[in-house]
């Protein structure tokens, strides 16, 4: 790692002021940032450490309107175990947290860090390769190179995939996020966190420089709502998903009345599949229906040279999430 200054803010105001300085990175646990600094992909002059701001930024609370607020510094282990998230409505979020990384990573890693993490593309993450991402080179090296773990849909000039497995369930739950920058506090829909057109020059998220995520909000869920998450991996632990799917459905009288679906690990951003989800509305759950929905979810997917396996596996993962949600 290159040397840097390490700032310890006493308050969010101090953190905001420090974050506004040039060549500054903001960190929570810093697992991804330390990794990137070791690779010299990031060489900030200053690191602002948010960890001391636990009172403001950590913890899970049920708010007056029945919604749930998850502080940005809340660890994945805390999400896994918190009583407010034990219902079927949050099964997919808790399940995604539980399958992330390793116990060591989950004990430190925060929800904000998870949704803001950098792609795992091995070309992007290696100092040795000059790929298009971030303007380091002329072309996307994965597009014609080793692309087993890369995108099958939704890409334009860079075939990286979004690595967060908490983002798909949070999107299906219609979550929002709050950020602070300067004197401003912004609260937006979760979908706005990700670029509409994920080009190589765009970062993984739409935050401005110096903008700090302070909390994630999940609106109150109806009693018969259920959110589930399924993913495929090559190892049972210590691995990123090769494909992932989060589903939220509401059932009434044996029929599905509300549905949303978001795929993970198949595109540079988490991919909502509203057309596939719409096919579920008004229907009774059945294997036959789920097969058609899974086909629809991957309609238009165009695999690269080495990742065609993601299509059949991804469809099975969609069916798995649907089976769990309607069991």
């Amino acid at each position, binding site marked *: 790692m290159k*040397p840097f200054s390490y700032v*310890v803010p006493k308050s969010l105001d101090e953190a905001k002021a420090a974050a506004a300085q040039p060549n500054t990175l903001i960190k929570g646990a810093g697992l991804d940032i330390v990794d990137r600094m070791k690779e010299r992909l990031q060489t900030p002059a200053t690191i602002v450490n948010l960890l001391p701001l636990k009172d403001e930024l950590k913890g899970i609370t049920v708010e007056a309107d029945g919604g749930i607020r998850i502080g940005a510094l809340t660890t994945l282990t805390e999400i896994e175990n918190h009583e407010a998230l034990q219902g079927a409505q949050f099964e997919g979020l808790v399940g995604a947290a539980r399958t992330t990384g390793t116990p060591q990573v989950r004990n430190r890693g925060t929800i904000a860090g998870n949704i803001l993490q950098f792609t795992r593309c091995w070309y992007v993450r290696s100092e040795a390769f000059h790929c298009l991402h971030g303007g380091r080179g002329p072309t996307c090296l994965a597009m014609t190179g080793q692309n087993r773990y890369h995108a099958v849909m939704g890409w334009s000039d860079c075939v990286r995939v979004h690595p967060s497995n908490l983002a798909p369930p949070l999107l299906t739950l219609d979550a929002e996020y709050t950020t602070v920058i300067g004197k401003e506090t912004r609260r937006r829909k979760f979908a706005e966190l990700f670029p509409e057109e994920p080009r190589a020059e765009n970062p993984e998220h739409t935050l401005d420089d110096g903008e700090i995520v302070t909390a994630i909000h999940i609106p109150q869920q109806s009693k018969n709502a259920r959110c589930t998450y399924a993913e495929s991996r090559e190892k049972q632990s210590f691995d990123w998903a090769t494909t992932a799917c989060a589903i939220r459905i509401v059932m009434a009288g044996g029929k599905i009345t509300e549905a949303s679906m978001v795929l993970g690990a198949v595109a540079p951003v988490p991919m909502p599949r509203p057309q596939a989800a719409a096919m579920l509305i008004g229907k009774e759950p059945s294997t036959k229906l789920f097969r058609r929905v899974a086909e629809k979810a991957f309609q238009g997917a165009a695999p690269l040279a080495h990742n065609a396996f993601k299509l059949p596996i991804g469809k099975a993962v969609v069916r798995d999430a649907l089976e769990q949600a309607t069991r």
Partner: protein
Amino acid sequence: MSHPPDHGVSRRSFLKGSAVAGIATTGITAATKAAAGPPVPESFGPGEHEITLSVNGAKKRVKVETRTTLLDALRDRMDMTGAKKICDRGACGGCTVLVDGMPTNSCLTLAMDAVGTELRTIEGLSNGDNAHPLVKNFVTCDALQCGFCTPGMVMSSLACLEKRGKPTPEQMRQDLSGNLCRCGTYGRVMEAIDKTANGGGK
């Protein structure tokens, strides 16, 4: 490397407003004192400075740079070479230490981030020939071959025992899922945990 002057007490006021309050004896030597007027956060580095880490119940002062990882501070600066540097990217678990009781990759944790926490390392589990029952059971169960993953494996096993009392095999698998053993001694490690949970090795 510049060594900032020791102001000592300025750390106390910082601790008051933060969640690490109550461990106020732990201190970072501030590089700059907060001036009056607009808030100026404390800043350290980029050079060396002294911090205090609480390791296995003892307070230890150690000189680090801001970029020094907890693993490097333990191994290179404090002569505690139990935790192993294997992948150095949080992908193997060889560097596992307990931070406030939770298994943590010390290679991905900055030493600065560990100020104000209670650290426990493999060194804390033995006192001369008198070892923790878990360590004795690792030996009697033959739970290691080359032994390089063992310090990390023991710390994850210890956290598993402390969290669950008598863990089931499934719980052990889950709690050890962040530690790789190239020799494949997982079965024996689980035996050692089980034996410890049932009072063996005392």
